[in-house]
């Protein structure tokens, strides 16, 4: 009698306990969401060199190519692999007091990692790779070396992009003498903020 009781008890407990263990194993679940922010380096700029045409003669246009040592050079430093936009504001003339002289700018830029110049014509003509409209924004990469891998690129470092500016002045036959100057504004912003 006692043996039967114990046996029944043991079997009953086993039948009940077995499915309950399965239920317990499935009654809790866990997952997590990463919370990741990247505080990026602010863009800094430095004018390395001014555009300097030197002496020009009346009626003789003079061109300084962007790669010429006399071309202007502006360096932008910022977060590696961040997309940036570059905007140029160029004068159509250089001035000497009330006198003006026609001016057209040309530019190219390259990143330090690739050293591959992309020629840009500030009149909006496609000179090199890509499309450029001086009235709009130019999208480019801070570095031309490698793809943007935002998820895993958590050890971002600084990268430098150099913009070289040249141009052409076209003095007339009756161009008054004088020192002609103008100002080119180059602005760079991050675009993937």
């Amino acid at each position: 009698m006692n043996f039967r009781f114990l046996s029944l008890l043991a079997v009953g407990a086993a039948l009940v306990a077995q499915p309950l263990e399965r239920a317990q194993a499935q009654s809790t679940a866990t997952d997590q969401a990463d919370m990741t922010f990247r505080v990026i380096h602010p863009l800094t700029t430095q004018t390395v060199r001014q555009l300097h045409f030197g002496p020009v003669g009346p009626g003789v246009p003079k061109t300084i190519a962007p790669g010429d040592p006399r071309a202007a050079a502006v360096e932008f430093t910022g977060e590696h692999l961040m997309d940036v936009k570059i905007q140029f504001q160029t004068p159509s003339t250089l001035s000497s007091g009330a006198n003006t002289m026609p001016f057209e700018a040309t530019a190219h830029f390259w990143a330090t990692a690739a050293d591959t110049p992309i020629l840009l014509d500030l009149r909006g003509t496609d000179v090199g790779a890509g499309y450029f409209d001086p009235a709009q924004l130019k999208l480019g990469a801070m570095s031309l070396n490698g793809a943007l891998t935002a998820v895993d690129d958590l050890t971002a470092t600084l990268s430098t992009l150099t913009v070289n500016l040249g141009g052409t002045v076209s003095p007339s036959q009756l161009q008054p003498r004088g020192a002609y100057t103008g100002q080119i504004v180059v602005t760079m912003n991050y675009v993937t903020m």
Partner: protein
Amino acid sequence: MAVAFAALLIAAAAPRAAQAQSDGSLNVGATAKVLKPLSVTRTGNGNPNNLMVGGTSLADQATFDVMGEPGAAITVKFAFPSELPIVGGGSEALPLSNFLAEYLLGSGTDGNGDPTYTFGTYIPVTGVAQNMTLVGETSLSQANQFLRFSYTASAAVGQKPGAYRGAVVVTVEYTEI
């Protein structure tokens, strides 16, 4: 788990009661309900968010889908960090604020028999483990409880550039109410 334990005790005690009343009979109910598996799954891409140095703030969200037994109560356990440490070591941290937990619960069905939902909010305390009990609606064929955690990161002036990373860990479990 509490349901399972109670059922086991009842099953074991029943033969003893029957033995004491040898000439009578005693019916003892022993029930154990096996619930649908409970799951919580993060949704969203988890991509890092870019912040500029200098007092800029950016809001972000972490979302989860919770599936389980219709009508069953669940407890949601989580803790929001008050700041995210910089990746790679160091003492720098990115402060977080504006925490909000939102959830979507099944609340029945509409006239067409389609599931309906109710929306609720909960403001957790930063850096403290939280328990939030949610109860779904039994009329749904399958409970779908959606969780969304919102927060804001702020980069102070002088914040060190770099990646800051942390996580909100969410655990859900069935709760007896």
